[in-house]
Structures are given as structure tokens and as C-alpha cells.
């Protein structure tokens, strides 16, 4: 297992390099000029100097390797310096600068990260916590009313895109319900809000309900179906009959024997879904005006902010590759029948 993990880890390097190159090429083909948004009063020769200082005039391979170096060598060191107070001699090196804001790209990303992680993370946990009991119960009572209703609701959850479910809950809870009502919820997520006491915690809770539930609906739809299918696979196995025959209580059979075995594929699906949920968060963040990574990406794309788009897209790619690896390794760890060596 360890050799397998190490082999896979080594294999991710060419994958990531290839993806980074693809992303770099696509974005670099963009005709957008980094100085286009500057005031018109800047004379052309100064404009050319600015371009030079941004490194746009260099050959594309040089730019690519510079970007790789900044992303994989300089930024981790800066991160270490900031978190542990060490001095690794990064003060004089040029960091990756955003065209739009002229501040280091990674600083902006670290700034936006908590909002996204907070909303996405909570939604994922909530979604899983709802999905797994539903999956277990629908499988245990297959074709019952609860199961049929669950199937229908998860089909709806699959089909209603977050940009409609989000708008729908805003219409219901922010527009139709009067503002002074208990059920009224804010439609705009206020990220400057700090939780200091009970009242502010209540506000934070209320403003998180809608974005979290919209994201959680999608997660629940997928994972509950998967948990159900996986439970059904196991419920008819011989070991379940043996357990019942030797007098294990029904509760013990389902919650211990069957559940543990059926959670193996579910856990891997949960791991595989994490990068996808960041993609979904791009839209949800746009609907509820959360200023997280997704919104940063949209603004960067609209503004032609090449370094920002490259870095953010690449971070999404890293997430996918990483969690694919995690899922494969988890599968091998949890299921002794799976051996990759």
C-alpha cells in the first residue's frame, strides 16, 4: 500500500505539470493586454516599461517556468515564513502579481479562502449527515413510500441546478417572507461579519442557512443514492444472513455489519466529490454574493487578470488530482480485498 501511494504520488507530478501547461497555454493565448485598464494618460513608452516589468514580453516558455517557480518554490516558502516567522530569503524575489489589483495573487487567494472553505465545508458536512441516514433507511425499506419519495427528491436535487434552487430560496425566504418575520433570511452573505457573541452567532447562522442548504441539496442527492445502492448490495450478502442466523439483533446487523461494509465505496465517493463541490461553489457564491474563491475567479476572468486565472484554475486542478489520489488510497486502506501491489 505504501509503495502504491508513493508511486501514485510520483505519477501526479507529470499529470500536474501537463495540466498546468494546458491551463497556461489556454490563458496565455488570450489577446488581453495587462495595461489595457490603465489610464490613457500613460505614455506608450511607460506602458511598454510596465509590460516589461510584468514579464509579458518574454518568450512563453520562460514565462511558464517562471510561473512554475513562483508557484511551487517561492509561494510555499513565503507561506512558511508567514506561518512560522522564519527567514528563508524571499524578500527580494518577485512574486506573482495580479494585473488588476497589483498585489500578490496568493495573498488575495489566502484572503478569500476562508469564506469559500467555510461555506463549502459546512455544506459538505451537512449534506453528508443528511444523506447517509436517508440512504440507509431507503435501502433497508426498499420500495417503501420513504424510499420512493427519497428517489424522487434526489432526482429533483440532481436536476435543479444551484443557480435556480438558489434563486428560488431567495425568492421564498428573502422576498416573499416579510423582513421582520422570524423566517426571513438574508440573501446576501456578509463576509465582514464577525462572530463575537450569541446575537452575532445567530446572524452568522441565519446567513449561512441558504447557501449551505442549496449546496447541500446537490450533495445529498448524490450521496444518498450512492449510500442506498451500496447498502442494497450488502443487505443480500451471505454474511448478513449468517449474522441474523446466529442471533445478532437487527440493529446490530444493519448498523454494524452492513453499514461498515457499505460505507467503503461511499467514503471514496465523498472524497471524489470534494473538488466538484468547489466548482459548484463558483455558482452558489455568485448567487449569494459570497466573496470567496469562485467570485474571485469570475472577476479575474472578466477583467482579463491572467496570473490570477491561471493560479486559481490550477489550484482547482490540484484539488481534483489530490482527491482522486486520496479516494484511491482510502479505497485500498478500507477494503482489504483491494490490493494495488
Amino acid at each position, binding site marked *: 500500500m505504501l509503495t502504491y501511494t508513493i508511486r501514485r504520488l510520483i505519477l501526479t507530478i507529470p499529470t500536474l505539470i501537463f*495540466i498546468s501547461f494546458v491551463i497556461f497555454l489556454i490563458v496565455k493565448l488570450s489577446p488581453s493586454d495587462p495595461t489595457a485598464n490603465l489610464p490613457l494618460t500613460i505614455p506608450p513608452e511607460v506602458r511598454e516599461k510596465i509590460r516589461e516589468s510584468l514579464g509579458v514580453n518574454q518568450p512563453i516558455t520562460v514565462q511558464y517556468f517562471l510561473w512554475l517557480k513562483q508557484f511551487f518554490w517561492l509561494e510555499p516558502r513565503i507561506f512558511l515564513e508567514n506561518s512560522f516567522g522564519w527567514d528563508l530569503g524571499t524578500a527580494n524575489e518577485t512574486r506573482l502579481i495580479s494585473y488588476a489589483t497589483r498585489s500578490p495573487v496568493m495573498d488575495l487567494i489566502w484572503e478569500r479562502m476562508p469564506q469559500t472553505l467555510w461555506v463549502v465545508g459546512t455544506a459538505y458536512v451537512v449534506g453528508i449527515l443528511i444523506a447517509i441516514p436517508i440512504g440507509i433507511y431507503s435501502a433497508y425499506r426498499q420500495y417503501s413510500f420513504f424510499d420512493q419519495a427519497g428517489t424522487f427528491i434526489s432526482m429533483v436535487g440532481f436536476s435543479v441546478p444551484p*443557480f435556480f434552487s438558489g*434563486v428560488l430560496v431567495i425568492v421564498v425566504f428573502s*422576498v416573499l417572507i416579510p423582513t421582520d418575520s422570524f423566517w426571513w433570511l438574508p440573501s446576501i452573505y456578509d463576509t465582514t461579519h464577525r462572530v463575537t457573541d450569541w446575537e452575532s452567532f445567530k446572524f452568522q447562522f441565519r446567513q449561512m442557512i441558504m447557501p449551505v442548504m442549496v449546496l447541500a441539496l446537490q450533495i445529498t442527492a448524490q450521496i444518498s443514492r450512492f449510500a442506498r445502492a451500496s447498502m442494497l448490495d450488502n443487505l443480500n450478502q451471505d454474511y448478513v444472513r449468517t449474522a441474523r442466523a446466529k442471533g445478532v439483533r437487527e440493529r446490530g446487523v444493519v448498523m454494524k455489519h452492513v453499514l461498515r461494509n457499505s460505507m467503503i465505496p461511499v467514503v471514496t465517493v465523498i472524497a471524489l466529490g470534494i*473538488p466538484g463541490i468547489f466548482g459548484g461553489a463558483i455558482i452558489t457564491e455568485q448567487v449569494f454574493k459570497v466573496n470567496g474563491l469562485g467570485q474571485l475567479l469570475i472577476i479575474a476572468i472578466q477583467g482579463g487578470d491572467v496570473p490570477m486565472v491561471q493560479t486559481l484554475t490550477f489550484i482547482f486542478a490540484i484539488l*481534483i488530482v489530490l482527491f*482522486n489520489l486520496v479516494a484511491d488510497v482510502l479505497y485500498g486502506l478500507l477494503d482489504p480485498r483491494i490490493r494495488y501491489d
Partner: protein
Amino acid sequence: MTDTSLELDKPSRSQWWYVWVQFRTHKGALVGAFVFIFILLGVLIGPWLWPYEATAIDIRSRNQGPSWAHPMGTDQLGRDTLARVMIGGRVSMAVGMTAMFIALLLGTLIGVLAGFFQWLDGILMRLTDLFLALPLLPLLLVIIMLFRETLSASFGPEGGIFILMVSAIGITSWMQTARIVRGDVLSLKEREFMVAARSIGTRNSRMMSRHILPNVLSPIMVSATLGIATAIITESALSFLGLGFPPDFPTWGRLLRDATDFLQQYPERAIWPGLMISLTVLSVNYMGDGLRDALDPRIRGR
């Protein structure tokens, strides 16, 4: 005994008849198919029958609620929402189906090649893995942002963005089909009829067209159905984020985006396009579900 004689009296039916019989037993799929065909006909024929033009501005009857003259109301320029929803549906459906077709073509080609030729398998599957590792939504946004100007210049604003969107969605969603098809081809290759066909000297091209493609048709059809749903959602998501068709060119995602600006005053305006997207996708998903069951010979006849 009587049963057997009855069975024998029955005229022989084609395979597709049995698929249809099985499909009919799936209630959700049947309802889904009806809803889908209804929406499809509605967006195709509807604009001809409906007296209002989608782009006709009538400023005096702006911001109206639902009435007999305008069943879905009018927008801030007095344009009839029903007409816009129907025209928008045309675009969304066209994008969904064309993108699905491209994805299917690519996926089947790569899947069959990878499954059939051992020496291509490694490289094509690595390619599939690489594509699966790409962050699709951000990349789609980037691609559309970057190539919009160029294509609009050569094919006109609508045609250019249509080509761009369809090919971008198609190129980024063939991977699942390729994987499924490859798996099926690999297992087909071991079967006796394939060995028999090879032993009488059948050429590769004929093996593929005659023996492989008909046998992998069912997974392809299922992923085609589900592909429409994904493509429609992707198109709407892009339009919703403001990176789709030009503003005066309605699609469901675009209409939803425009409606969110008036959410406080006219909340019902956002419901219609959203409802159409959700209904279409839901019906397509149910159809795919039923088709999967109907095409599976193990389930058939149960």
C-alpha cells in the same frame, strides 16, 4: 401449456419493440419522455403560433404580471416572457443536443479505439484521465472568455458563440462515455462471436462497425440522454454567469440571470426559465433512467 402456444402465435418483434415495452413499464421514464417531447415541440413550434415576437419591445405594457395576454408576464422592456422562454428554449435545447452529439462522437471514437487496439489503450486512457483531472467549469469560463471575440468576428455574434459553446462543452464532457464504451469493448473482445469473426478473416473496420458498435449502442444511448441534461445545465450555468450568448439573445440561463436583477420587485420572473431548465433536465434524467433499465436485457421481462 396454453402460455407456450400463445407465445408461439405472437408475431416476431424487433429488439426495439422489447425495449419500448420495457420502457413503458417505467412510469417516471414515460412521464419524462412526454414532458420532454412536449417542451421540445413547444420550443420548436411555439414561437410560430404565439403572436408575440421574443424581441418585440412594447414599452407601454412593461413589467406586467401574468395575464391572459401574457401568461408569463412581460419584462422591463415589455417583451413577452413566454415568447422569450420559448425562443430561449430553442437555443438551450440546440446547444444541449449538439454538445451532447459532439461529446458522444468523441467519447465513442476514443472508447472504441482504446478498447479495440491494445497499443492505443494506454495513451488514450491517460488522456481521458488527464481530461477528467481538468477543472471543467473554470476552464470553460476561460475558454469562452478568450475565444469569444475571435469567433464572433468570423461567424457573427450568435453563430460564433454557439459554435464556441457547443465545442467547448463537447470537448470537456466525452470522458465518461469513453470509459464506459472502452470497458464494454474490452469485454466484447473476449466473446466467442468476436473470435469467430476474426477467424474468418474479418477486417478491423468491419469488426468495429458490424460487431462492436451495435453491441455498445445501449450504454451510448443512455449516456446520450444524460449528456443532454448535463449540457443544458452547463450552458445555462455559463449564461447565468454572464459568459454565454449576447444579452439580447435569450437562453434559459440568460433569462434567469436577467431576472435576478429584479428579484425584489418581480420575483416570479425568475421562476419561469428556472422551472423550464429544471423540468427539462428532470425529464431527461428520468428518460435516461428508464432507458438504462429498458436496454438492460437482464432486467427485461421482469
